[in-house]
């Protein structure tokens, strides 16, 4: 009886490649997500597994698609700004900035200096919050709860600063076409310096607990590696590419706003594994803190001044006069009901967001409604080579790799 079974089994499994395998078994398909505790983001992985190692990986995105571009094409240019908040919920100011720089490029506007410094400061606060979330969440998903709490505490401090600056912690709606919503509040530099000192202290604790920890290193080192030529061909930017040793940073290569006057370094890694990505992110946080301090210094030296361009095409009239003067009142009605008219043309603006190059490709036909608002999402392009990074790795390596690819659903799926 037993011998019969053996024979039928051998008869069934007689293909040539079957004899090359160690075990006469099939690959397993595993569905991971769309909602999984180890992925902070709604994404589905279809994983083909040979035991513990990954043979193939298919990533399915789009669970957070809300029609950002369609929505933008039905409102005025002003009404797009709150929607850009919702792209990357960690670093909303960077998305605000990318969009507004694009519209300013179409209009040919140059913003006042004070506004530029505030924009830089806001975008660095955003970058800081994004990196803190990324590193903190990565620790949490690798089962290290303590550093996560330090990271989140530091992020709360940056969000406190964002709230004082913009009026909201996450959905900032701060940058306007040709300026910012309002000047920074009185007492902001003192609060900011105090918080920066506390963030530095927390980063020190974060570093002490995790960076040289063998458990952490074992999970991170040598996982998710892809060589830089391949990353470039896939259009990967940001900390992922810098960790592979390519010092590509839009802030340095094509300086926008006042980045050319600032003193900061670009951290790069050597190998391009997750450990390098972590180290690059931590170093970038320290650089961001340096930039914020420089911005505060420059803002204090600059003294009070306008934070908006005095261009009637985009600037709503000064409120104090709208209440009492007929002319401004009419102008206000015109500005709100029509919205800014942007000259016909196309422009591509680019900022260095926390995930990489965030581009906005805007097309206008000369009316108040955009023809096309295309957001070039760094998350989407960074996520794309992930199957290639992970082929041959273990199932558990998905988690640190996905954490440092840092796919943000809102930005990836728009």
């Amino acid at each position, binding site marked *: 009886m037993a011998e019969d079974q053996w024979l039928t089994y051998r008869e069934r499994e007689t293909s040539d490649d079957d004899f090359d395998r160690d075990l006469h078994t099939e690959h397993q398909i595993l569905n991971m997500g769309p909602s999984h505790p180890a992925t902070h983001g709604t994404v589905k992985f279809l994983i083909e597994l040979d035991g513990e190692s990954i043979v193939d990986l298919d990533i399915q995105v789009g669970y957070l698609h809300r029609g950002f571009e369609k929505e933008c094409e039905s409102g005025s240019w002003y009404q797009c700004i709150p929607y850009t908040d919702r792209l990357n919920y960690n670093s909303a100011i960077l998305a605000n900035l990318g969009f507004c720089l694009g519209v300013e490029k179409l209009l040919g506007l140059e913003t006042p200096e004070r506004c530029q410094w505030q924009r830089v400061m806001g975008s660095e606060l955003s970058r800081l919050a994004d990196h803190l979330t990324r590193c903190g969440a990565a620790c949490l998903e690798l089962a290290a709860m303590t550093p996560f709490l330090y990271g989140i505490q530091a992020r709360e401090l940056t969000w406190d600063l964002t709230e004082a600056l913009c009026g*909201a912690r996450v959905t900032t709606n701060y940058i306007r076409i040709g300026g910012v919503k309002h000047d920074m509040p009185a007492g902001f530099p003192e609060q900011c310096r105090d918080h920066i000192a506390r963030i530095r202290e927390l980063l020190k604790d974060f570093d002490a607990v995790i960076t040289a920890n063998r458990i952490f290193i074992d999970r991170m080192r040598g996982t998710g590696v892809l060589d830089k030529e391949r990353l470039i061909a896939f259009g990967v930017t940001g900390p992922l590419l810098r960790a592979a040793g390519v010092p590509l940073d839009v802030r340095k290569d094509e300086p926008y706003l006042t980045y050319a006057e600032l003193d900061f370094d670009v*951290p*790069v890694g050597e190998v391009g594994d997750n450990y390098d990505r972590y180290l690059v992110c931590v170093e970038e946080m320290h650089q961001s803190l340096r930039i914020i301090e420089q911005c505060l210094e420059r803002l204090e030296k600059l003294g009070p001044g306008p934070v908006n361009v005095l261009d009637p095409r985009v600037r709503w009239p000064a*409120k104090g006069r709208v209440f009492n003067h007929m002319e*401004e009142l009419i102008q*206000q009605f015109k500005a709100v009901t029509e919205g800014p008219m942007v000259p016909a043309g196309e422009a591509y603006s680019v900022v260095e967001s926390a995930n990489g190059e965030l581009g906005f490709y805007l097309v206008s036909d000369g009316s108040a409604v955009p023809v096309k608002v295309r957001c070039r999402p760094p998350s989407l392009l960074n996520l794309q080579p992930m199957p290639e990074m992970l082929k041959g790795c273990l199932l558990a390596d998905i988690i640190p790799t996905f954490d440092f690819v840092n796919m943000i659903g809102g930005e990836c799926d728009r």
Partner: protein
Amino acid sequence: MPVRVVKVKRHENLGFLERLYVPMIVKGFATASRHFFRNMRGFITGDRTDFVVQYPEERVDYADAFRGMPVLVALDNGQPKCVACGLCEFACPTDCISILPGELAGSGIERYPEVFDIDMSRCMFCGLCEEACPEEAIVLSRECEISTYERGAMNFHKEQLLVPEHLLKRRLDFLRAEYDRQSAPAGKS
């Protein structure tokens, strides 16, 4: 400008002790204990250093610039300051405001909103209505805890939205300081 590139420092070669996990465990304990004892001392002496707020009992004070739910400013006679011009309706990206203007004979202000509804389930607190308003009649309050048991109750009517001016002082002061700053350097714009 030459790009100054710094190479990150990897902990490649772990020493014997480090490979034993021991020093990091001790270091981790030390760091966590330091936080714990500092917070406990603060708790006993009353000079709190911990970060967590016991929410419903304790609340944090939001910044001056904080944007909460939009409300209507009420005049002393209880009537809204709003003149139902509809600019906020135009400015709103999510179309959550609906206004029906009415006529009020015999008072100083002849136009008023007969119906003023804000669908709070769609409102995203962006503040464009406040920026558009030419009468300082709709402002963002400091209230942000608006949850209801039914969806229909999220549609706030005029009576629910009216807030007397003195309760909105902090927001109005913040806005007025901004107007002054705007018009100080160049009044013409």
